[in-house]
């Protein structure tokens, strides 16, 4: 008796002591919620839930991979308690859904007539596929048969279509598909996905800086599913109204249709569905992941900041946007004139993002009203710097600060503020105006000046029209609106009149020499070719860079790396993490002045990195990330079997009408045109990989 009691006393004591000390000695930090959830789970470690033990299940629940009701032993009460810990509704952890990544393809032809079992698996095993495309959907519907919930059917194009309402994300289809085309993902997984080298993506999607699934939304438009198309675009781009208006659509440059006739008018189609949503009078609901409890400060409410905030919010984080200007929008509000992007449209779009629960604070400037330290002490777990590029480069010539001389961004911003009634001095417009520069800012300046009633507007550019970096449509529009162009002219000084006002611009004539590093032929001045141009207003728009004055001493940003181009340094252009681990950047602030769509893509990539950072994972992109590269096998020089049809013409206001007002100049295409244009898409992706090019994905 005594022996037994003593023995057990000793055993219990030793076990207890050893474990107590071990728990102190081997203490490792982990999310306290894991322990809490684990405490609520049954602790039987039976493995019935499919996870290896209760602690593994707890980790999965906290990471949002398993629902709070994961435990098969505990009842619904436990699920409710677990849900309370994780901060979600019971049973509503972010659901998995099945997605078909293959859009089929019109030109995929049947290669074999297999007479045996009519199943994808058999064919994949025997022939490596039935279609000419070696990676794409075979369309025999193993996945449809595998689905226990009737959520899959073979669509009209011969590939499976998922009914999201019925799909429970069980993963049966993913497992049976021999081609890895079906995938089971949460919404967050989809938002976080970066284009991969072995993805099935068409050249347009490979080119788009925002990685929008273009063939998918075009096929949705073709099937009259405009709402679906909007959702598809929103997976990558929250600013579709703006982008549909101002994007120079690099995607169209590599459209395969363009090899044979004309590229599909991708951006017009995007604008069509975007306007369709706005004009329908109701917003298509946008789903967000469960709250994570993390707070992120987004500094800068431009396209990069808005995009980053939107994706972070959808990933479940709490976001506040800080902006130095009176209203959100950044460069697309203050840099892009009303006639290209009406403020009303922009406001509707931004409202949609703020409606998701994104908070915003206007009129606060980084480095003036707050700094990194104040954000950290306010409890923000990560900071995004999307401060844009607002500082005009100066011409560095004599007299450029004379009365009547302006810089591009400054001019556009002051005018836009004025126009919106946000204060600021009005600008006295001259009669003979000259704008120096060849980029979009210069064109925006001249077209604005035309609308403001300037008699004579001239662009002075030191190379030729072919080298102008502005969008071709914009250049053409400016020409139509009567803007004069002086090419091969390098300003050397501005001459003042006796009142100290700009009177004449003196420039040197140039000729093109050898190509420089950018591939453009270098302009070389011609000696003694000084010419004078009469002006009473001069705008220099020769480029802009980020304003990094916030980094002055005492603003607690000593550790933030800045490149020699004055952009914020991020070691990896995909990860976008700065030298301060919790600070991320994107948009013009990181790349220098660039496209809106580039900033939107950057915003999403930064949001992905921030999400990874906040989840304690590495921010480095997956090894096969396809950033600004193309899959070699997807680039063709000829495409067979195309009946030549021209692309749809964009409707626009007549020139004499539009130069009098700031009304939107470019108009939306009609529904019929949109449908017709969507038919021109070749739906190329997998179906059209060039088998002769080695190094194909898969």
């Amino acid at each position, binding site marked *: 008796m005594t022996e037994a009691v003593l023995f057990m006393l000793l055993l219990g004591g030793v*076990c207890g002591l050893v474990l107590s000390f*071990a728990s102190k000695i*081997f203490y*490792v930090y982990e999310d306290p919620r894991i322990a809490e959830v684990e405490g609520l789970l049954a602790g039987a*470690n039976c493995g019935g839930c499919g996870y*290896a033990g*209760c602690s593994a299940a707890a980790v999965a629940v906290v990471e949002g991979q398993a629902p709070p009701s994961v435990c098969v032993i505990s009842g619904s009460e436990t699920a409710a308690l677990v849900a309370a810990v994780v901060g979600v509704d019971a049973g509503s952890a972010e659901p998995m859904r099945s997605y078909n990544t293959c859009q089929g393809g019109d030109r995929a032809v049947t290669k074999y007539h297999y007479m045996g079992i009519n199943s994808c698996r058999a064919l994949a095993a025997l022939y490596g596929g039935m279609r000419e495309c070696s990676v794409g959907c075979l369309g025999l519907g193993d996945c449809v048969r595998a689905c*226990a919930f009737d959520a899959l059917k073979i669509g009209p194009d011969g590939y499976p279509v998922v009914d999201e309402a019925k799909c429970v994300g069980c993963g049966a289809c993913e*497992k049976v598909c021999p081609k890895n085309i079906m995938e089971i993902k949460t919404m967050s997984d989809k938002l976080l996905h970066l284009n991969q080298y072995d993805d099935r993506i068409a050249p347009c999607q490979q080119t788009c800086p925002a990685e929008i699934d273009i063939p998918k939304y075009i096929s949705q438009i073709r099937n009259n599913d405009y709402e679906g198309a909007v959702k598809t675009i929103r997976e990558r781009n929250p600013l579709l109204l703006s982008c549909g208006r101002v994007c120079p659509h690099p995607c169209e440059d590599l459209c395969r249709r363009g090899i044979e006739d004309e590229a599909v008018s991708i951006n017009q189609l995007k604008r069509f569905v975007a306007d369709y949503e706005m004009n329908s009078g109701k917003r298509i609901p946008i789903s967000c992941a469960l709250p994570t409890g993390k707070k992120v400060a987004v500094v800068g409410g431009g396209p990069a900041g808005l995009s980053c905030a939107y994706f972070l919010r959808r990933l479940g984080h709490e976001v506040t946007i800080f902006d130095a200007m009176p209203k959100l929008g950044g460069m697309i509000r203050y840099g892009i004139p009303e006639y290209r992007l009406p403020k009303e449209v922009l406001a509707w779009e931004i409202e949609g993002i703020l409606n998701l629960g994104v908070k915003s604070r206007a009129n606060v400037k980084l480095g003036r009203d707050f700094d990194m330290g104040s954000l950290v002490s306010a409890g923000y777990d990560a900071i995004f710097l999307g401060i844009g590029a607002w500082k005009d480069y100066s011409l560095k010539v004599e007299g450029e600060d004379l009365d009547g001389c302006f810089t591009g961004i400054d001019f556009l911003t002051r005018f836009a503020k004025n126009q919106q009634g946000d204060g600021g001095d009005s600008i006295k417009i001259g009669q003979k105006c000259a704008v120096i520069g060849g980029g979009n800012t210069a064109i925006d300046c001249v077209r604005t000046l035309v609308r403001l009633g300037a008699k004579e507007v001239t662009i002075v550019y030191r190379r030729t029209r072919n080298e102008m970096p502005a969008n071709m449509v914009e250049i053409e529009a400016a020409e139509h609106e009567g803007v004069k162009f002086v090419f091969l002219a390098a300003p050397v000084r501005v001459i003042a009149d006796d009142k100290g006002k700009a009177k004449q611009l003196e420039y040197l004539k140039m000729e093109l020499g050898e190509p420089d590093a950018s591939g453009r032929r270098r302009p070389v001045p011609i000696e003694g070719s000084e010419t004078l141009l009469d002006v009473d207003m001069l705008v220099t728009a020769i480029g802009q860079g980020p304003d990094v004055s916030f980094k002055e001493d005492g603003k607690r940003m000593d550790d933030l790396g800045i490149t020699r181009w004055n952009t914020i340094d991020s070691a990896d252009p995909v990860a976008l993490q700065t030298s301060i681990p919790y600070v991320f950047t994107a948009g013009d602030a990181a790349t220098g002045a660039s496209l809106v769509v580039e900033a939107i893509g950057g915003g999403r990539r930064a949001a992905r990195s921030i999400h990874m950072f906040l989840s304690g994972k590495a921010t480095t992109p997956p090894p096969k990330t396809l950033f600004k590269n193309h899959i070699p096998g997807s680039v063709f020089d000829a495409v067979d079997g195309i009946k030549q049809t021209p692309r749809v013409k964009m409707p626009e206001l007549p020139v004499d009408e539009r130069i009098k007002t700031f009304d939107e100049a470019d108009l939306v295409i009609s529904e019929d045109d949109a449908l017709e244009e969507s038919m021109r898409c070749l739906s190329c992706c997998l179906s059209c990989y060039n088998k002769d090019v080695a190094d194909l994905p898969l």
Partner: protein
Amino acid sequence: MGDYILLVISCILVNNILLAQYLGNCPFLGTSKKMETAVGMAMAVVFVLVMAGVITWIADTFFLKRFGLEYLRTISFILVIAALVQFVEMFLKKSIPALYAGLGIFLPLITTNCAVMGVCLINIKEEYTFMQVIVSSFGYAVGFGLALILFAGVRERILLARVPKPLQDTSIALVTAGILSLTFYAFKGMV
């Protein structure tokens, strides 16, 4: 030496812990849905089983038998195993995080795995010597891993098959386990 080889073969194949002795079936069904999980679990079992076999043998030989407290075997074994597993878990988490990432999550699952407790009891019942305990624990654990990994492989294939609805999931898994067990049945009488 020959005895030990015989013992190992007997433990892995003839008396396979999962398929012939019916021990550890909950994790057998629970962690065999995916190959990676199965491999992780198998490794963790080998790791823990050998340690548990040794430590319970020591406890039994030097304490329980000496003081005539054999009837406390069940309670002391489970306590020792539970404490050991928890200790190993904490130790790995701190000292060898890489190993913990692979095995750690499986460790708590093992506390209540009857295979571990069962093998410890078998070791005592068969009155094995210290060396035999090590060999048999290792053998049983390898047998567990072998069966688990084989089964996971089969289950991954079954997912591709069209199984009648009422038979799906656990039901078909059990029938499959039965057929797998039938193949191990062929080893009977080998040793």
